[in-house]
């Protein structure tokens, strides 16, 4: 075949492939720099007719969803000798694409493991990515392809829906098809080696496309493209498998499907910088939650603007990376008490569950998300957490000696203490039924700030359909007549596994009492001023004066004086007593006096 025919054939292939003609897999597509594209066009005009020109002239004959993809790709393959072509052809042949519609709903690891379990031979998925709601990957073996076809409708998801899998013949995936030439790989490797800092085990790939070495050799490394990302990851796997820190700042990344493949290649990565890219939703970030990150940078991505408040943003990101200590340069306090080896959390799990760590993480994540909505958002958001026919009831401590309980009873009027309430009708009324009633009554309760550091969880029962646990902890009331008061609570959740490895609440019982002075001080000493869960109320004039005089008298700084007063309900004398008690016990840290 002549060069021209060769090139025409390739062009036709591109057109037939339709959506896959694009070297990017995802639906929305952002344009590369105009300047570079122009460069390509000029170079390639003799070699082939670029699709973009065709598209412009013919009013978008083929387009992918609603976007016009304009791709320009240097294709030197037409110039290669015959031997090289044959070998290349072999790797380009016999590819199958496996599509799971609605694959987006499922946890990637679960999905791939389920499919793998139904397959007699282990296979390696190539170029796993998402297209809108679909999950898709490629494999090269026709026997595996037919096995995978049979797996369709064999796997049941959590809602008992059968998962359907489509398998079709296709052209080679982009990372294979547009594999970098050996010279390009070599140059890329050299460049990456230069950018590697051995002392920190850190690799700096920011603005990689415009690296002078690569530009000088006319190698276009656009990390958005699967083949480029795949090549870079290959080099990382070979040269820097113990990589600790990776900087991908400024690479116009708008999807992380490709980066996902780094997880088995460089599993020790703790620091990742993705700032100033084009990531538009946290779903992209969730794709790499297999990394055990301690430090993450996401600022400068469109996804940051989708959050109305900092706390929600932080808690969503932290839910993906439990070990995270620093986000966008902001440090959190030490991990929540649930992460620190809480012996009480360990013991129940050892006896009752098969996978204690997973279960603990599941519960931790649930509690983090639940209380994030409970404390910071409009509690309406909790509707998603409750089952249609869930129940909720509230009970308030009834220790006759505790005078402070009077305020408690005024606020928590719907206390359902069957020792005091004997009327069947009233008992029924106070038990909230259906999620709308439940959330309605939760919205009426005062706004709170829970101290997640204080949480201790007892796991009561774990079966396939039920996960029941009790949470003990403290919270502060942040509004109303008892603003600043510290409460202790015991909350029993009975949940069932819902969709997407979430828990769905069936029963919720909340018991509230006034926190003891001891509990108040424990809570005080665990929280540092920069804690994410810290609560800073606005003080009245009188309260400010109290803080000042307390500070002078006690020798503590304003912050700690304020906390002490707050936790003792602004009862100056009580606060003094508590302070003296703790001081003699030596339980006040040094920093309180600085």
């Amino acid at each position, binding site marked *: 075949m002549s060069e021209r025919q060769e090139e025409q054939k390739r062009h036709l292939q591109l057109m037939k492939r339709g959506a896959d003609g694009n070297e990017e897999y995802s639906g929305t597509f952002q344009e590369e720099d105009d300047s570079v594209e122009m460069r390509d066009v000029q170079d390639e005009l003799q070699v082939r007719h670029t699709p973009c020109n065709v598209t412009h002239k013919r009013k978008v004959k083929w387009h992918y969803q609603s976007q016009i993809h304009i791709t320009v790709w240097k294709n030197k393959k037409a110039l290669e000798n015959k031997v090289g072509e044959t070998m290349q052809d072999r790797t380009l042949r016999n590819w199958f694409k496996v599509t799971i519609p609605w694959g987006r709903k499922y946890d990637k690891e679960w999905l791939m493991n389920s499919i793998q379990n139904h397959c007699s031979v282990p296979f390696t998925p190539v170029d796993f990515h998402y297209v809108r709601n679909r999950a898709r990957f490629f494999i090269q073996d026709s026997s595996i392809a037919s096995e995978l076809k049979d797996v369709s409708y064999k796997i049941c998801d959590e809602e008992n829906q059968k998962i359907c899998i489509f398998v079709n013949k296709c052209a080679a995936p982009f990372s294979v098809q547009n594999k970098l030439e050996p010279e390009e790989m070599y140059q890329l490797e050299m460049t990456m080696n230069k950018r590697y800092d051995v002392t920190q085990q850190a690799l700096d790939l920011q603005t990689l496309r415009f690296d002078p070495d690569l530009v000088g050799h006319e190698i276009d490394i656009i990390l958005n493209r699967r083949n480029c990302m795949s090549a870079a990851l290959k080099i990382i796997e070979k040269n820097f498998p113990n990589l600790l820190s990776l900087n991908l700042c400024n690479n116009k990344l708008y999807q992380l499907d490709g980066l996902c493949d780094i997880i088995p290649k460089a599993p020790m990565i703790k620091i990742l910088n993705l700032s100033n890219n084009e990531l538009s939703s946290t779903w992209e970030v969730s794709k790499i939650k297999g990394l055990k990150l301690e430090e993450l940078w996401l600022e400068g991505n469109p996804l940051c603007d989708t959050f109305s408040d900092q706390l929600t943003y932080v808690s969503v990101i932290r839910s993906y990376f439990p070990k995270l200590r620093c986000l966008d340069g902001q440090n959190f306090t030490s991990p929540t008490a649930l992460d620190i080896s809480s012996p009480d959390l360990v*013991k*129940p799990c050892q*006896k009752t569950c098969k996978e204690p760590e997973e279960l603990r993480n599941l519960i931790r994540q649930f509690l983090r998300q639940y209380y994030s909505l409970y404390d910071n958002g409009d509690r309406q958001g909790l509707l998603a957490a409750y*089952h249609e026919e869930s129940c909720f*009831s509230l009970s308030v401590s009834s220790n006759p000696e505790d005078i402070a309980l009077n305020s408690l009873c005024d606020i928590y009027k719907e206390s359902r203490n069957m020792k005091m309430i004997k009327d069947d009708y009233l008992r029924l009324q106070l038990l909230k039924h259906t999620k709308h009633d439940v959330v309605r009554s939760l919205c009426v309760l005062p706004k709170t700030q829970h101290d997640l550091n204080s949480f201790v969880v007892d796991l009561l029962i774990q079966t396939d359909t039920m996960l029941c646990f009790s949470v003990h902890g403290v919270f502060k009331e942040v509004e109303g007549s008892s603003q600043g008061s510290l409460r*202790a609570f015991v909350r029993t959740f*009975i949940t*069932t596994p819902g969709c997407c490895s979430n828990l769905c609440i069936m*029963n919720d*019982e909340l018991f509230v009492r006034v926190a003891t002075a001891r509990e108040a001080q424990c809570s005080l000493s665990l929280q540092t001023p920069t804690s994410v869960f810290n609560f800073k109320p606005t003080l009245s004039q009188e309260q400010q004066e109290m803080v000042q005089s307390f500070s002078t008298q006690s020798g503590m700084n304003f912050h700690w004086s304020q906390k002490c007063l707050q936790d003792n309900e602004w009862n100056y004398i009580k606060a003094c007593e508590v302070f003296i008690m703790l001081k003699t016990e030596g339980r006040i840290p040094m920093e309180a006096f600085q």
Partner: protein
Amino acid sequence: MEGTGSYHRDWSEENRGRQYQQHDQHRQPEGSGSHYYGPQGDHSRQGNRIPEEVVTPPLAASASSGSLMAAAVDFKTHVDQACRAAEEFVNIYYETMDKRRQALTRLYLDKATLIWNGNVVTGLDALANFFDMLPSSEFQVNMLDCQPVHEQATQAQTTILVVTSGTVKFDGNKQHYFNQNFLLTAQCTPSNTVWKIASDCFRFQDWASSN
């Protein structure tokens, strides 16, 4: 029917060597206010009843239809049943704990779990040892709440959640405030429903400082 048969067998086994059965006719503990015994006919069974069992009358629908899990039972009925069972249970449990500690394990399922201030105890043997070791107690329950558990979670095994709070004094220790919650499951027969503890979670309110 099989269930009823074994139930009777259990009775005969339990009745052997039971000394205090005769004078434990006070099935109505003081101050509870719950009226377990409805029609007079129930009293006839009183003499055969083992004290350490929490029994409630069957749900009205199931008695007539013969099926134990009639879907027609509405929410209110579940709540009523739960309240009745919870009150009965709490009275029997704490009385047994205080006065007849050796019989306490009868209230637990074979595979029940107790989490006592974070310590896990599973199985009747371990539970028996544990309760043996625990000093004698004096419980005072000030708060009681309960909820019927949705059957989707329990796979149609009738279950109720019972939450209590109050004070307890163990011999040789100071008084503590405590919180406790139970999951009780029902073993239904045509004539009544027997409730047993599937899980029991107990904590002092000041557990942190009492270690």
